């Protein structure tokens, strides 16, 4: 009993330290920002424009690449194939490489001299220094969050349910959309939210592709460099609040939307 009590105390202390480590700096941002400063930031069109650009670019990347990434997650969960381990590793690569390096890598593919860059230009899409480049950079670094969550979700759907549906006459398409996807929905939605949230916070890859138009992480960095901490902090506080609010609302919505009863 004593040992359990001691163990509990040690665990509680360590857990508390970790939580404090996460919460204290964030709380510091909010507490050190005065109400008038909040007001100034909210009234600043540059900040508002950058927040809108950040939210929408990340959302566009999530939706665009999510459509292709969900089938990939399904394949990784269901099929055994040659080099599957390598592909699983490849999926995680954007998480482990420095994001500035990721930015350089993307730049190598979309810069004006490349065929993608040229094709984009012909279609009126600017990657370097454009919204399309920001979307690509955000999607690149955040895709692993969606693929991994969705793969785990599909993995948890018993294959027998799919076989039962096939046996009842359903086509493989129908099985995917009426059985596999709804049952993996919780994980897929969670992955989409994580991908979107991760895209919002991206700085390293985005700044290399597009300094302008300015996403909020780049704006915070620019304000910090040009004017110092007291000018960067209010922008950071407002951006964190907006992200938190949307994150909480989406979590609640996705939770209420799912009714898997067992």
């Amino acid at each position: 009993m004593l040992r359990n009590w001691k163990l509990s105390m040690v665990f509680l202390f360590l857990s508390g330290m970790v939580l404090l480590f996460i919460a204290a700096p964030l709380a510091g941002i909010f507490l050190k920002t005065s109400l008038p400063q909040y007001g100034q930031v909210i009234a600043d069109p540059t900040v508002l424009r950058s927040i809108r650009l950040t939210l929408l670019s990340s959302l566009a990347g999530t939706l665009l690449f999510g459509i292709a990434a969900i089938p990939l997650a399904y394949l990784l969960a269901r099929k055994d194939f040659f080099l599957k381990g390598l592909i699983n590793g490849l999926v995680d690569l954007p998480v482990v490489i420095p994001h500035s390096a990721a930015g350089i890598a993307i730049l190598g593919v979309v810069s004006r001299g490349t065929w993608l860059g040229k094709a984009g230009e012909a279609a009126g899409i600017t990657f370097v220094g454009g919204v399309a480049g920001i979307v690509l950079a955000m999607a690149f670094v955040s895709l692993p969050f969606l693929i991994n969550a969705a793969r785990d979700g599909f993995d948890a759907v018993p294959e027998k349910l799919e076989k039962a549906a096939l046996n009842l006459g359903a086509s493989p398409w129908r099985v995917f959309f009426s059985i596999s996807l709804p049952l993996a929905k919780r994980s897929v939605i969670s992955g989409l939210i994580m991908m979107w949230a991760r895209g919002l916070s991206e700085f390293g890859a985005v700044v290399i592709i597009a300094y302008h138009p300015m996403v909020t992480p780049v704006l915070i960095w620019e304000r910090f460099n040009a004017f110092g901490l007291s000018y960067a902090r209010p922008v950071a506080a407002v951006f964190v609040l907006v992200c938190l609010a949307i994150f909480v609302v989406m979590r609640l919505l996705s939770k209420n939307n799912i009714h898997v009863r067992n």
Partner: protein
Amino acid sequence: MLEIKEISIRFGNFALEDISLEIAPGDYLALLGVSGAGKTVLLEVLAGLVKPAKGQIRWNGRDITRSRIQQRPVGLVYQDLSLFPHLDVFSNIAFALKVRKTPPAAISKRVNELARETGVQHLLERFPGTLSGGEAQRVALARTLAAEPDILLLDEPLANLDVKLKTGLKALMRQINRSGKTMIHVTHDFMEAATLANKVAVIENGSLAQFGSPEEVFRHPKTEFVARFSGIKNILPCHLEPAAGEGSLSKAILAGGQSIFFLGGEPSSEGFVMIPQEDIVLSEGPLESSARNQLKGVVREAYLSGSGMEILIDAGVELVASLSRQSFEKMGIIQGKTIWVSFKASAVSFLAG
């Protein structure tokens, strides 16, 4: 007619070898075997979910070995039922109908009919996670019947159910069978097979050990495995010796040296004699009777079995006899009591080993 011809498949660490069966429309086949014998895989092969390495499956003359899953005349009910957890009972049953683009009004009518037939009409709005084992089994049957298969494949449908629920479900399965459905029912319980099926196939080590009517298989098991599976407990290794002057009787010598007489001549010299435990008569002394076989033994154990008792007797070889509670009490059977065991030569059958 469902013809399964020389189906072979290797799957993980077991294999099915050359399984051949013929099942007439309306037949109720029990597929018997121990767990892991490959019975479920055979069902999946029939359903098209697993491709056989070789062999052919024909239904009414049509080769369906390579047919698409959706075009096969079979409905499969898995042991774990695999009800869709995110759909309520109504939608589970309606699934096959929706897939076939049945109009909503017709879906509603048919689902209600099936729910009534299977006794789940009060559960239509419930989700699978809230159903009991028996309820879920009935829903799974209704869902599969909605696809109107010619052949119903049932994987251990009565496993993990209590006696009362089993009785109800057996009645439902007989009723489904009487309505014209061909049934293939996988089980490891020979009593279940005997009470439901008109044909029995026993799978042993991936091969078909015996196929026939329950009567044939259980009365005349072809292998020791089938005999043990069919519930015969007295299966004793023996060798045969000439039974001079005994007419049509043959003589088997047991491992302990005891002689057992049985009807019919056998060309084999090694094998097993099988003595149904119900055919053994117990007495406190030697019996003057028509029973040709008599052995003296000692009671080793007595235990309850169904409505009666089973007695384990050491007569040089171990024998199990069944008797009623009344006889057990009247004879005052206790451990260590000396007892005589008698049985007719006609009750003994010989199995070449």
